[in-house]
């Protein structure tokens, strides 16, 4: 007869069944159980309970994971509601009336939320700076070379301010802004500001492309501000303003054409 170990506790028995005891201790428990058939029967039952639970709820490791449980997709989708400006983001998402009103190259209708955060950021930045006079921009258009190289470096994309002179708009300058706070992949944003003779202002908010690098087109409207958003494999761009609809479309189209133009279609 083996002498009983000093202290086999109820906790030890549970840990034994759950495989949580170190081998030496487990051996002691086994030895003790050999002389305690009542307890041995009880923990044999616990073991069967464990087996039954494991059979009822088998591991899900081999099952395909639906898209809605893929963290990367969720991260993209959740951007719009993580800005800390829920009402703004909600407005941007809800009011994304895509297509009919914006007849320029609007193609995809079902992916509003990836871009909602960026659109919200662009609209907020526009509203924040558009009424500034002396501080509307960080670097003025007079210092254009510096503006271009600085923003291009920080956004890590070649950013050439579109020429909107035919539409009556001149570049005021630009500034660097945080991108969507929750979209780490999009990095910082460049905001370019334009102004016409009537002192109407339009801003262009540019970030590096989202991880999916897919083409997308959206139109959002909030209060008096319209936002045209598009993305391609290089950048995302949101044009924000409160011009009459036709003028806004013409400006947005011009910006789109210039920013997506590529020599030999080969720039990477």
């Amino acid at each position, binding site marked *: 007869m083996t002498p009983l170990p000093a202290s086999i506790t109820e906790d030890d028995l549970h840990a034994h069944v759950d495989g949580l005891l170190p081998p030496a201790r487990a051996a002691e428990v086994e030895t003790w159980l050999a002389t305690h058939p009542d307890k041995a029967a009880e923990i044999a039952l616990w073991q069967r309970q464990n087996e039954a639970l494991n*059979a009822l709820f088998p591991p899900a490791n081999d099952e395909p994971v639906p898209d809605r449980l893929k963290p990367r997709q969720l991260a993209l989708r959740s951007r719009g509601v993580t800005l800390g400006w829920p009402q703004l983001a909600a407005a941007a998402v809800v009011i994304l009336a895509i297509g009919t009103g914006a007849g320029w190259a609007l193609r995809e209708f079902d992916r509003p939320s990836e871009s909602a955060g960026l659109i919200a950021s662009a609209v907020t930045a526009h509203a924040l700076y558009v009424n500034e006079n002396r501080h509307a921009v960080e670097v003025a258009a007079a210092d254009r070379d510096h503006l271009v190289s600085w923003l291009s470096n920080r956004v890590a994309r070649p950013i050439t301010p579109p020429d909107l002179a035919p539409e009556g708009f001149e570049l005021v300058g630009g500034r660097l802004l945080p991108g969507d706070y929750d979209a780490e992949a999009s990095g910082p944003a460049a905001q370019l500001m334009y102004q016409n003779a009537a002192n109407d202002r339009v801003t262009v908010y540019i970030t590096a492309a989202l991880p999916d690098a897919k083409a997308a087109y959206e139109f959002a409207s909030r209060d008096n501000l319209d936002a045209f958003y598009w993305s391609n494999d290089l950048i995302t761009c949101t044009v924000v303003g409160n011009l009459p609809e036709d003028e806004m479309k013409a400006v947005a189209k011009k910006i789109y054409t210039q920013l997506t133009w590529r020599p030999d279609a080969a720039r990477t």
Partner: protein
Amino acid sequence: MDFLDEIETCVPALRRYARALTRNVDRADDLVQDCLERAIRKRGLFRPTGPLQAWLFRILVNLWRNSLRSERRRGEHVAYDALVIEPSIPAPQHGRLALGEMNRALDKLPDDQRETLLLVVLEGVSYEEAAAILGIPIGTVMSRLSRARATLRALTGTGDEPRLRTVK
């Protein structure tokens, strides 16, 4: 490893536990989705101290408790038509507890005992980890475990001969 990739590796374990808690595949995935969304939203504000998986389980458990509470307030019931008894589950063999019986018994366990037992048995976490995930002292983990096993024993019998099931 990137934060999102790291989360992704935890998804199967979260789904398994969620299915055991909810006993409904769709509801389980809803719960996991809520959990993941919350984790992704919080990542900038909160650096989880322990292992990421424990943090995710903690979020999942809290969401589940909240949903149980609000459900009780509304007096709703879960439809049992959609029980997670997958067709692929092997029929009970000699010496095993009948799964249907176990499933019904599990349903009668108090919530706190069920969440504790399932966490330990299905996910293989240590009692310390279980205590951290559930936000309770380790002594409470042990007493819940003990009561859960005793309750299941009372509900499913002792596993002695009358309880043996033959293969269908």
